[in-house]
């Protein structure tokens, strides 16, 4: 149970930090393509740094896998939003959305894991 709580906390943290980093770099009116690529890049950086810090506590795969999705996809989406000024004008709101995004990604990965887990091939059947 502690690991599960930790997974969600890590996802929220990753999402919030990605949103923060993107907000620091992307300004309203920035070319959206540039903003999305920049967001993706900075999201990947956040995921590597934060992921490596958290992986010893939560597990390499369970940390880095959702972190990759949060950093890359989240970074792109936050970049798109911030370049268009399309919501969450205040920083706390942006961080909140980032954290929510992270939580949802962790949930989605866990659901997907449940679906995929188990025997794929058993020649002895």
């Amino acid at each position, binding site marked *: 149970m502690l*690991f599960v709580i930790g997974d969600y906390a890590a996802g929220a943290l990753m999402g919030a930090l990605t949103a923060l980093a993107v907000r620091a770099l992307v300004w309203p009116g920035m070319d959206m393509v540039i903003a999305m690529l920049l967001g993706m890049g900075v999201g*990947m950086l956040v995921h*590597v740094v934060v992921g490596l810090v958290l*992986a*010893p*506590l*939560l*597990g*390499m*795969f*369970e940390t880095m*896998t959702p972190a*990759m*999705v949060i950093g*890359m*996809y989240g970074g792109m989406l936050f970049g798109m939003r911030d370049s268009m000024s399309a919501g969450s004008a205040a920083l706390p709101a942006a961080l909140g959305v980032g954290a929510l995004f992270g939580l949802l990604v962790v949930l989605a*990965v866990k659901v*997907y*894991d449940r679906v*995929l*887990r*188990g*025997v*794929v*091939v*058993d*020649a*002895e059947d």
Partner: protein
Amino acid sequence: MDLTTQRKWDAASRSFDLLSFADDHRLGPHKRRLFTKIRGATLMVAAGTGNDFKFFPPGHRILAIDISPGMLERAASKAARYEGEIELRQMDVCALDLPEESFDTIVTVCTFCSVPKPIAGLRELRRVLRRDGQLLMFEHVRSNIGPLGIFLDLMTPLARRFGPDLNRETVKNVQRAGFRIRREENVYLDVVKIIEAVR
């Protein structure tokens, strides 16, 4: 001996055990379950710092090899604690200094994400495995989930500098080396797998 790979893992050996706490708890039960299938003369490839020795059932005789002397140095104390016999030897899996058909069981844990020539290494394993022997693998592989697979491809050049590749097609490599897959199980998404194979 592949000195580049050896040096990489010598360097990694200093911090290797720092990363193992959570993985031991979350993945350890799956490894323990897999290792209950060990029988007869057993070879463990890429023993690392010996972190997985604690998941072996007691009473077995195991030859544990690794390309890195740094890893083996750290594995020695864990081998001594095992309730059985673990012999440690430095060896390159792609050039095993072992006779043909000498083992009933070969075990690998997150090994073939790191061997530079995985099919060559697996062919060597097949050579030293007895005809009725088994290959038991606990590996992480490239995901077939589209975006995740792409992420793993993108991250591999960085990961490879300090550790493993993240996008190996290990199940296919096992088959390309001449093994038949007896059992394949997803442990975490389709990234962490148990692979059991026979000659």
